């Protein structure tokens, strides 16, 4: 499997040679070798548990590899077991993580200089004019069109990402940056800003910058990457040019078998029974939103970040008390601001941020699965045996990969944790299933399984309200799409009228019109 590493140093920015990483009882990386060419947009793909994150942590010096491997960056070579963060930094490998590590309440200039000495005046105080001049120069050099005096938190997500990248590259002339590693940089960007970011990255690559780009979003990789490396189960599957690759081929490389997940849903007849009616709901950013949800129907909500989608779903579920309007489920009005009331009426909610709002990480998988339905096990005392048995059944039904039914949830991969959260609610056979970004940060394989479960829930009669930033997901699952902008519903379409272009243009146009 080992590839010869004889490429001339000038052609190769970073080379990974025979790198392995063994954790107690688990081989996360198994003899992985590949090269990242200079000035190449190199994509790194793999499902959760493929070893992708481990490899990046080794490149960053956070983990050390097993003995026998090595990493080369420019002229520097290091044994895999001896790599440290300071080596990675000296060798010119820079990282922009998913969490950008920016300081919201500080200015762009202060963020750019974080970790660097501030320019000083002769008296020893900070030389603000010099700092802003320097910041302006760095921003211009990277084509970032924002003022150095603006607050970081006021910038759009794409602009924030670009500032984080500019901070890494800072001064391309004086510091030699061999490789820029970007970990899921687009996962929290609205679609319009994704293109903005990727176009900037294309410009950096054209100017000779090497980029290692980690993403679950295959479209971005198909459109922008030059070379792709795929890892699966810790093994190097392939490193090859993008010529002749399409979505299906990439998916096959990642999951190991062909799975059809990108096809758009066929229009189908919808049961006219109305399960839930939202009437003129206003709360926080949400303004007078009203719509019906029918039995077995999947309704997608499209909208830019900040359009109020999450707040809408939370308000329906009783997290916030609406200022105005109401929610009616099966002809009964929900008690405003009551989560317990919403659940009793047949609602279920999978929130966006799993770690903060849905995972009991230190409790067992079985306890996580039963959390929304504890009373089922109360017959005199708590029937632990029945709970464990149900957990075992759900592990099989939802194909949850786990060390055991009682294993703490933290020991499962993100995709499997998410399957457990979904399974928790599907146990209750909810009439209405509210999903907020149900596959964020979930690998392609687990994603297909989650889609299958959502569709199965629809067949059993649950109405599904789906908030997602992933257009493919929206198109794949939705019978009907509602477009939200600035807290209002601005458009809707069903069946064949839902197209990628329509969603993208309506979402963006509506945002412009309102402003």
């Amino acid at each position, binding site marked *: 499997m080992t590839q010869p590493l004889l490429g001339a140093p000038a052609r190769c920015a970073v080379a990974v040679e025979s790198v392995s990483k063994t*954790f*107690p*009882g*688990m081989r996360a990386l198994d003899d992985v070798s590949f090269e990242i060419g200079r000035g190449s947009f190199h994509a790194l793909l793999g499902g959760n548990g493929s070893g992708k*994150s481990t490899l990046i942590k080794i490149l960053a010096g956070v983990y050390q590899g097993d003995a026998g491997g090595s990493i080369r960056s420019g002229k520097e070579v290091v044994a895999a077991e001896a790599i440290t963060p300071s080596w990675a930094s000296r060798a010119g490998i820079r990282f922009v993580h998913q969490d950008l590590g920016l300081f919201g309440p500080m200015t762009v200039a202060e963020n750019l200089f974080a970790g660097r000495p501030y320019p000083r005046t002769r008296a020893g105080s900070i030389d603000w004019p010099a700092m802003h001049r320097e910041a302006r120069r760095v921003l211009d050099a990277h084509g970032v069109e924002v003022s150095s005096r603006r607050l970081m938190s006021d910038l759009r997500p794409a602009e924030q990402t670009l500032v984080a990248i500019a901070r890494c590259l800072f001064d391309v002339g004086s510091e030699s940056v061999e490789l820029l590693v970007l970990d899921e940089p687009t996962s929290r960007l609205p679609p319009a800003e994704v293109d903005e970011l990727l176009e900037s990255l294309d410009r950096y690559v054209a100017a000779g910058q090497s980029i290692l780009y980690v993403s679950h979003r295959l479209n971005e990789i198909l459109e922008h990457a030059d070379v792709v490396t795929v890892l699966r189960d810790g093994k190097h599957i392939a490193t090859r040019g993008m010529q002749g690759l399409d979505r299906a081929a990439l998916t096959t490389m990642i999951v190991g078998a062909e799975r059809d997940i990108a096809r758009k849903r066929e229009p189908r007849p919808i049961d006219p029974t109305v399960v839930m009616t939202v009437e003129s709901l206003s709360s926080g950013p949400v303004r007078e939103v009203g719509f019906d949800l029918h039995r077995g129907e999947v309704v997608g909500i499209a909208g830019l970040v900040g359009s109020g989608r999450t707040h809408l779903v939370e308000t329906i*579920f009783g*997290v916030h008390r609406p200022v105005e309007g109401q929610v009616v489920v099966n002809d009964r009005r929900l008690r405003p601001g009551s*989560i*317990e009331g*919403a*659940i*009793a009426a047949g609602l279920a*909610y999978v*929130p966006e941020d799993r770690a*903060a*709002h*849905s*995972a*009991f*990480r*230190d*409790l067992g998988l079985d*306890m996580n699965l039963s*959390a*929304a339905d*504890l*009373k089922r*096990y*109360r017959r005199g*005392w*708590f029937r*632990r045996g*029945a709970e464990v*048995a149900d*957990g*075992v*059944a759900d*592990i*099989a039904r939802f194909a949850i*990969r*786990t*060390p*055991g*039914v009682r294993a*703490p949830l*933290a*020991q499962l991969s993100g995709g499997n944790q998410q399957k457990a959260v979904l399974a*928790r609610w599907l146990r209750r056979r909810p009439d209405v299933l509210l999903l907020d970004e149900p596959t964020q940060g979930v690998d392609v394989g687990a994603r297909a399984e989650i889609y299958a479960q959502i569709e199965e829930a629809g067949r059993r009669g649950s109405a599904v309200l789906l908030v997602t930033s992933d257009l493919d997901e929206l198109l794949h699952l939705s019978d009907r799409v509602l477009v939200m902008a600035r807290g209002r519903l601005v458009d809707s379409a069903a069946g064949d009228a839902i197209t990628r272009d329509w969603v993208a243009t309506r979402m963006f146009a509506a945002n412009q019109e309102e402003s």
Partner: protein
Amino acid sequence: MSTQTEPVAREAGDQVAARRNERIGGPRMLELLERYGLVILLILVALFFTFWSHTSGVFPTSANLRNVAANESILVIVALAAMVPMVAERFDLSVGAIVATSAITTAKMLTAWNFPVVAGIVGGILVGAVIGLVNGVIIAHYNANSLVITLGMSTLLAGVGSYLTGNNTLLGVPQSLLNFGNLSWLGIPRPVWLFVIVALIVAFVLGGTVFGRRLLATGSNESAARLVGMPVSRTILIALVISGALSGLAGVLLLARTGSAAAGVGSGYTLPAVAAIFLGSTTIRPGRFTVIGTLVGVFFVAISVNGLTLAGAQDWVEPVFNGGAVVVAVAAAAILAKKRLGSAR
């Protein structure tokens, strides 16, 4: 009908689970050491004092061990009291003050107001429960910081204690109550029976009731607990009421053992109780507050201090040991938690 399908599903699932186990495995030895480290240490300390020439004469005698167990019975109940809200990450630092207040209330009822013994006992426990209710309403309903509220309550109760006793020691407790505190059943001191029963009940409430599960879920992720529809505020409130009632019971037991009550007698229990539950959280099920862990925590400190005292150690040894145990236990818990979360990735 479900009984027919369950075994099949269980079998299929167990196979899945078994396969995963093989693949992922784990650092077994280290894990075992982490789990039973404190238990092993407790056994080693006990063995040491059994054979060490300075203590081997008295330490291993049944009279000494019975005495230690009976003495610690109050602390065990106070520690279990403080543990219940701690499972949901709420401190109750008023446990010691409640012990004193309840002891004083019962003493007052029995000596000054001539209530029957049973009424006095119930009164003491009830006073504890009411104080817990006040703590609970403020902490659960208004989401106030439990540390500060219970610390304030503790100070307030100390003042109330002085007022009730007029700074005198209340004496003259009926013999029947003293008998409970100082006699044995089947060769085992009655207070030991009491703490064993209390421990079993608390263990059942935590592990065998819906309330216990809600408490655990609240401690694990409060926001997630709310979002699956658990009545988080009510759960925390009930936990603090239980804590108050158990502290009240400990106060009555204190009165039964010593035959007297005075302002401030219980305040010394708060820190050792907290020390015991944090020590306990490093063992058996690391990262979780458990009844068995708390018992190990209490007796680890008690046995060590008892042995050292028998060997002629000075008075300052016990507070140093207790304080040291808190610091070491909390630090160890933090280090272990960091390691666990780090290795889970």
